[in-house]
Structures are given as structure tokens and as C-alpha cells.
């Protein structure tokens, strides 16, 4: 039996969840700013002393903001896709997004040096991105479109069908990537692999601000759809009987979630488990209502990835290297997920 907050009104519960989670996120960000590879005096940095100020503002702040944005995007997308598929085990990447991103990256790495590669490089640098990132987003969105097109039955996104198409496409894509890796030079393979396992880098502030604003659109759309996502739990017919335009809701939620994942993928590659563990943890505490779960998952996901990244930086400080943050979320996420699963029984 799960515990619920003993407040009846949904608006009050959502407000309470946000009020409780905002300080958690703030604390997580403070930790993220305070720890890292080098020793940093926060007091010195805040007084503008160098090199501490540069480390804080140019390195740690952008990285913490990036982690927060990506964590929020993946968690919200996870909640939405789980509602759409009516499957609590759905990960944001099951729709073939990871496979699409991987193929996109691999293609760019092969193409570098050719005319197509040069064009991709210039287009990407115009947007302030690496060509591999741009290709990954394009690949992920193409995969989403493919899954949406093939995953329909009688004009509607069919959960089981879409899930199967996504899984099959992901296997197909990983076979392609394996084939591509066989013809790449070892250092190219290394680069692709590192990126695919989910890495947080240091992005420029204007780009981060742009990404943050861009992420707000899908998140607001999904929160506005929250009431309808609740009704989808009653089945397509049950939702339709309550006045929901089921195919429109599915279409909107699917592409909003895919866009959020696409933006996250552009910056960090494939960070696994955030979109799976955070929604589950939030539902366990706050119940299944998406009007509460979606805003809470955005804040909780942001805090989770900021902390995971801080942990990655601290743990591997002595080694002088950093594991990709995707590895950390998987190492924390997998056992946590099993614990959550067992506690539900």
C-alpha cells in the first residue's frame, strides 16, 4: 500500500509538492556548485576572486544548469510516455529515440571529410552544437516519426504496437552502429561510445538559456495535458466517453515528449534511467495523478541528475578522470528501480 499526502485538492497537492521539491533542487544545485574536480572556495568565487570565480561561473554553473535541464526533460518525457503507453516500464528511449540518435551520430562520424559531413559541420556550428549532436537530434526525431507512423492502428497510436516498433527499431539501430564501428578508427569508436553513454559537458550560457526556454514549451504542453493523461488510464474508450480527443492528446503528448528527449539528447547523449526511476519515485510518494506528478517529476528529475553529476565528479576525482554521467545514473538507477519495484508489491 502506497502512502499518499493526505490533502484532497489536486491543486493543493501540486503546490505542496512543488514547494517541497524547490528547496531540494536548490540544495542539489548548491552541492553541484560546491563540489568538483578542483578545490574551490565558494566565498572567494562569490567575491569575484580568480581563478575561483571563473571555475564557478564558467564551468560549474553551466554544467549544473545543463544537468538540471536535461534531468527535468527526461523525467517529464518519461512520465508522459508511460501514460501514453499505459506501461510503467516505458523509458523515454523505448520509442526508438536512442537507436535513431546512435545511427545519426554514426553517420556523421563516417561522413566527416565528405561533402555531406562538411555541410553538417557548418550547420551545427551555426547552432552552437557539435555535428554529432545535431545528427543525433535529427536521428532521434526521425525515429520518433517512424515509430509514430508505423505504430498506428486504425489512425491512432497503438501503445503495444508503438512499443514493439520502438524495441525492434532500437535493435536494428544497434546492429547498424555495430557494423559502422567495425569500419571506424579506434579513436572515432571511442568518441561515439562516450557520447552514446551520456556525458555532461560545459555549454555556453546563451545556448543553455535557449535550451531552457525551448524545454519549457513541451513541459507546459504536457502539464496542460495532465488531466487528459489521467483519463487515458481508463483506456481509449473510457477517455473518449469523458470528452477526451484521444488521438489528438496522444499526438500532442507524443511529440512534446519526443521534443523534450531530443533536446536532452542533443546536449548529453543517452542518459539512461532518469526517465524511468524519477517518475516511479514521484508516483510512489505522490500518487498517480499527472497534474501532481508532472511538475514534481520536472523538479525531482532536475535535482536527481544534478546530484548524479556531482557524485560522478567527486567519486572519480582521485583518478583524474570522469565516468559519463549516464553510467552513474545507471549504477544508481538500476538498483533503485529494483527496490522501487519490490516495494510496490
Amino acid at each position: 500500500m502506497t502512502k499518499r499526502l493526505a490533502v484532497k485538492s489536486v491543486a493543493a497537492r501540486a503546490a505542496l509538492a512543488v514547494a517541497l521539491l524547490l528547496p531540494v533542487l536548490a540544495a542539489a544545485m548548491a552541492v553541484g556548485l560546491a563540489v568538483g574536480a578542483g578545490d574551490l572556495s565558494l566565498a572567494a568565487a562569490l567575491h569575484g576572486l580568480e581563478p575561483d570565480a571563473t571555475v564557478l561561473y564558467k564551468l560549474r554553473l553551466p554544467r549544473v544548469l545543463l544537468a538540471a535541464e536535461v534531468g527535468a526533460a527526461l523525467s517529464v518525457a518519461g512520465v508522459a510516455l508511460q501514460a501514453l503507453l499505459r506501461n510503467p516500464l516505458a523509458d523515454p528511449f523505448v520509442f526508438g529515440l536512442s537507436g535513431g540518435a546512435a545511427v545519426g551520430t554514426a553517420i556523421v562520424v563516417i561522413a566527416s571529410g565528405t561533402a555531406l559531413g562538411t555541410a553538417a559541420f557548418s550547420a551545427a556550428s551555426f547552432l552552437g552544437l557539435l555535428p554529432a549532436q545535431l545528427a543525433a537530434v535529427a536521428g532521434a526525431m526521425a525515429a520518433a516519426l517512424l515509430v509514430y507512423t508505423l505504430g498506428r492502428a486504425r489512425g491512432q497510436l497503438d501503445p503495444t504496437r508503438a512499443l514493439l516498433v520502438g524495441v525492434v527499431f532500437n535493435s536494428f539501430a544497434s546492429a547498424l552502429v555495430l557494423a559502422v564501428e567495425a569500419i571506424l578508427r579506434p579513436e572515432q569508436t571511442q568518441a561515439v561510445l562516450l557520447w552514446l553513454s551520456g556525458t555532461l559537458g560545459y555549454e555556453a550560457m546563451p545556448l543553455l538559456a535557449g535550451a531552457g526556454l525551448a524545454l519549457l514549451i513541451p513541459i507546459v504542453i504536457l502539464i496542460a495535458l495532465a488531466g487528459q493523461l489521467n483519463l487515458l488510464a481508463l483506456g481509449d474508450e473510457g477517455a473518449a466517453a469523458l470528452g477526451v480527443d484521444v488521438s489528438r492528446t496522444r499526438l500532442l503528448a507524443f511529440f512534446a515528449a519526443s521534443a523534450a528527449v531530443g533536446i536532452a539528447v542533443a546536449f548529453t547523449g543517452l542518459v539512461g534511467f532518469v526517465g524511468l526511476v524519477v517518475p516511479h519515485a514521484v508516483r510512489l510518494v505522490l500518487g498517480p495523478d499527472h497534474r501532481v506528478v508532472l511538475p514534481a517529476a520536472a523538479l525531482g528529475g532536475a535535482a536527481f541528475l544534478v546530484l548524479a553529476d556531482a557524485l560522478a565528479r567527486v567519486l572519480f576525482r582521485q583518478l583524474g578522470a570522469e565516468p559519463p554521467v549516464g553510467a552513474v545514473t545507471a549504477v544508481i538507477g538500476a538498483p533503485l528501480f529494483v527496490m522501487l519495484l519490490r516495494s510496490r508489491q
Partner: protein
Amino acid sequence: MLLEVLNLHYRHPKASKEAVAGASLDVRAGEVVGVIGPNAAGKSTLARLCCGLIQASAGEVKLGGEPLQKLSRRERARRVAFLPQDPPSDLAFTAREVALMGRAPHLGLWALESASDLARADAALAEASALELADRPVSQLSGGERQRVFLARAFAQDAALLVLDEPTDGLDLAHQVLLVDALRSRARKGGGSLVVLHDLALAGAACDRLILLDAGAVRAEGIPAHVLQAGLLEKTYGTQIDVVQDPMTGLSLVAPRITRERE
């Protein structure tokens, strides 16, 4: 007139025969109308057509005098509430949250319920004798309890017309009586119901009028005593059926004749 159905036709995708083949019926305010008939007679399909959940290939459905196609989805959901035959069982939502979902067609953009919506949901739970289940997750309820919770959701929708597909499925005798009482009490306040029922005796006792459906068409229609006749039922259901008038109530008791071989 809450519901008017005129010469309705529907064929399932890829099916060779029409599931509903020229059915006509109506439900007036204050009336409980039962739909009976053998398996695959088109009862559930007809119920779905009346709620606009599937599109008829020909014919017309009017809700409150207006053609169904002309109504927005929300407006349609404010005029007709639907209780499906097999409501989902794996919901983490509590019974109260499910009853509140019935308020969805009345809510604004952010879909936030007001205190009066909460009160309406609790009243609906009481009406469906499910108030004591209010705080339990639906996934932990028995089939009959779940049926009552979804009935409460349909009541909370505040639609003039209620379409119920096998609402007594999984209900024990006491709760069947409570369900009929709830429908009759709604009828006294001017609400109407179209109820698909398997139990012919219950249908006869609960309904003002019965519609006997066979192969997608209306075979007989009228007051229960008129429709519940052994000869008619035997021809429709293809088995021997006894109909006895209860001397106490005057109601028709219907039972299939089952002969056991003597050893």
C-alpha cells in the same frame, strides 16, 4: 427525448455481417430502457454507437434532440455517460479519484476540480453505494466493488442519459438491487438510462421498457410483459425457456429449461 436512434447500421472493420443492422429506439426522460438479446446480437455495439464512441455507417443518433455528430466531445460527454462492460482493473487511482474523473467534461483548461466537484464525486460514490471504498486504490478492489466505483464515475458525470453495458456483471444480489434502486431514483428525477442486461428477470423487474435485439435488429420492443414471452424468447435465444408470472409481484420470472438425464 434524451436519446433517439433511427435506422442505425454498423459493421466492425473486416467483418462480413453488420453488427447493428437498422436498429431504431428511443429513451425518454424518466425512463429506464433495457436492451436484451443473445450473445453477438449487437447490444454492446449499439450502446457504444449511442455514446458516439464508434461511428455508425448509416442512420442517426440524437442526444437531447441534437444530432450526435454536431456536438463537441465535451458537450457529448455532458449529455451521455457510459459505463463500460469491463472497466480497467490496474488503476493506481483511488475510488474517489476515479469518481472525480466523471467531472472532467465540466472542468476548464488546467482540469482542476473545485470543492463542489469533490462534493459531487462523494455524492456519486454514495449513490453507487461505494463511499466506503473512496480512499482505496481501484487496483485493490474486487470486480463487484470496481463496478460500483465506475458506476459512481458515470453518476458524477451529471449527464441526463446513462448508457450502461452489463452493469450487474460481478455484482452480488444485494448490490444488483441497490443498482436498480439507484437507476429508478435517477429516473424519478428525470434522468434516463439505457441498460444492456443479460439477466432477463432482472431486466423485466428493473426496466420500464425492453428492447429485444437479435442479429443487430430490434425483434421486439415494449413493456417487459410484452417482450418477455416464452415463444419469442425461445426463437431468439434458440433454447427452451420458461416464463412464469410471480403471483406476489406480477413480474415475469424467466429461466432456461435445463433437463438433467436421470441415472
